[in-house]
């Protein structure tokens, strides 16, 4: 085989390998991903047994510690639907009522279960668009 031919073959092989690997990557990302939903969407479209990434605000007054479990409700940003859930695992520092959170949930028998250690609280917004009023003390 001439050197030029060898090079073409090499290139084709390399590109094919890259395409195959990329396809594998892309395919698994779609199957391994959990849809990001708001409480409203979850109520409407939620399927039992499937994992979802629930995002929203922690509803005021809904937080309760029961031994190792943390019960709280996640509310739509607009304040409409709220999903109560039970969560076990790491609770990040910034977690509190009114904070934006992301938690992986699965719909069990009649209730939602937060997956272990999946709770993420958004860092309190460092970059605010509108300035807040100053506090006098």
């Amino acid at each position, binding site marked *: 085989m001439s*050197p030029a031919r060898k*090079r073409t073959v*090499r290139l084709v092989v*390399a590109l094919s390998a*890259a395409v195959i*690997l*990329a396809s594998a*990557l*892309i395919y*698994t*990302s*779609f199957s*391994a*991903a*959990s*849809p*990001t939903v708001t409480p409203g969407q979850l109520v409407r479209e939620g399927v039992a047994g499937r994992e979802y*990434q629930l*995002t929203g605000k922690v509803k005021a007054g809904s937080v309760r*510690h029961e*031994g*190792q479990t943390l019960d709280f409700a996640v509310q739509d940003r607009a304040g409409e639907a709220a999903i109560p859930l039970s969560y076990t*695992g*790491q*609770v*990040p*520092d*910034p977690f*509190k009522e009114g904070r*934006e959170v*992301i938690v*992986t949930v699965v719909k069990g028998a009649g209730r939602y279960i937060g997956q272990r250690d*999946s709770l*993420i*609280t*958004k*860092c*309190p*917004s*460092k*970059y*605010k*668009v509108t*300035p*807040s*009023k*100053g*506090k*006098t*003390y």
Partner: protein
Amino acid sequence: MPELGRACLLLALGVCAYGIGASLYGVRRGRPEFALSGRHSVYALAGILTVAFAVLELAFLRSDFSFNTVADTSSTTTPTFYKAAAVWSSQEGSLLLWAWLLSLWSSLVLFLTRRRLREESAYATAILLGFAGFFVSLMIFYATPFATTNPAPADGVGLDPLLRHPSMMIHPPMLYSGYTLCIIPLAFGMGALIARKVDAEWIRATRHFALAAWLFLGVGIMLGARWSYSELGWGGYWGWDAVENASLMPWLTGTAFLHSLMIQEKRGMLKVWNVSLVLATGTLAIMGTFLVRSGILSSIHAFGGATLGVPFVVLIGVLIATSIYLVYTRRDMLASEHRLDSLLSRESIFLANNVVLVGLCFVIFWGTYFPLISEALTGHSASVGPPWFDRYTVPLALILVLLSGIGPVIAWRRATLANARRNFLVPLACALVVLVVLLASGISTGKPLAIAMFCCAAFVLGSVGQEYWRGTRLRRASSGEAPPLASLALVRRNRRRYGGYIVHIGIAVLFVGVAASSSFQHASELSLSPGQSTKVGAYTVRYVRPTGTITSKQDAAHTGATMSLGAVLDVSTGSHPARHVATLTPSEGFYDSGEPSQGSVGHLIGGQAVSHVSMDGGVTRDVWSAIAPDISTPRLLRVMNIANKTIPLVRPDEGMIALAVLVREYLKAPPPAQLHLIVSPLVLWIWIGGLIVLGGALIAAWPAPSAVRQRVRVGVRSADDRLDRPPASPERGLARV
């Protein structure tokens, strides 16, 4: 003073516009004085932005709350160090920092290349001013740092307690320096393409800037990881969060660029790769900057500000389109001077290195932007978690480490079996020894990837060690120095090579730490009462007693926690007798929320709680602990209710006394507290590896000692010329190894 700041921004925009015009006019019409005027515009811009930054910084230091950004992120009780650093904790302030750093680095670079790269640097000047102008426009039209409120509020909101940590304050300037430094090679790359001069001179100049960018980004990433590990309450150093990934991606392409450049230098190959990599690095840096502040991706760091999204998307689109256009239209001059002779050659290994690094970058890119991609393709936003990232990045990282051991020793053009025997025997032996030891020790069951990483790291150490050994021996043969001196001289005279080898050692060490701490970690999360103990890995942790402190609001030396509750933990190992290992004191700090609705006493501790981690770091392992005390037991809540009812809002001192009562009640009968305990082996080596990388990079980047250059200039033929052949040309005095 805010008027001066606003005037500076307008002036800056004007200077950018003029500079772009002057540079382009100067280079296209052959009027060097205009090109020089364009370069001076960059210097002027740096001056203007310095004044603007000083105005903002002074406002913070003087607690001038008429400035909105000061009122939003600082307060009278914020310690001075954090006041000074709070400048960049807001969107507007960070844009100013970005623009200022860009102008400073651009000025430095243009000054250093003032006598060279005439044409390329004129275009680069225009491009750099374009970027600066973009950011200045953002500040003028979208998010100005100099907005004021009249009348000024009496006090500010204060800096988020989570950010009151020294490395969290250094992390943004480091990262921004990294990002802005990535723009400079991009500008010179585009300039070189426009001027049709992608040659050795361009490589020489761009390499230094790319190395500086790579260094700063790397330090920024390491600082962020360290902060996450030692300050945040989750005990990890990397979470594949969108913002972490955003800074890693340009670093990966930057690494590929620095390596791939060598091939262009030595063999005139991979030119298309190199320009593409340098353009990609700059574009990824802009994308990273955009990601952090646009809120388009849900992540731990999602900062608000959807209004900034559109300009950035346009900028990124322009960058990508321009890059593709330039590379395509200049492809004839980017043709390789040589061809790949063999798949087993250094050229081929470097090409593989490029592919793996770009592959890693692609995986991370895909995973990071997946929510947007899936939304665009399927209408539903979905995200992938750390396990998906790990699945693809770990094997790629293994290959990368392996390549870093093969690359330095494999022969150019074509590796023969004899080469391979000579160069790979020792490294392979090292890897095998490690493998055997690990298998025999029995700890390796079920952790093949970690074992593979340890073996690859051993391979790298063997390969680099061999290089040093052989090089020292060569040097000693000609100079007769003692081994340590010979080694030093070797490094001094071949900084780039041997400094680079040290970087490879650092990376190997770092990955050993990562592999060990992820695969062999023991973690435990449970409720404990005083007196109880639990086992974590080889250690027994006993909750000895609770702790509690109150700190007055005026104590500026502290981070400002009003109340702190924690525990004393005793860590021991073994039994009969148990050996004391460490005493840990994790605690949780409660901060003032400033919300009267939480009660006159409630608000004093109603703000965000911050976990103060306590750990015992060691050479072989870290024992890490965090605590979440329970303050909502019925008894403690009763105390709080009574305090809220009886103490007026305007008497915070009496509120503090009430808190003291609360703390005493807590200490008298402490409820079970939630403890998070982790024993991670070899974490320290991650930080050590990072430091080794830094040291190696500095050695590689340091200019050659003048002694070497002196010898060369004098033109005296060196006595240690061992080459047994007639010179092809009159010797002009080239210093030997």
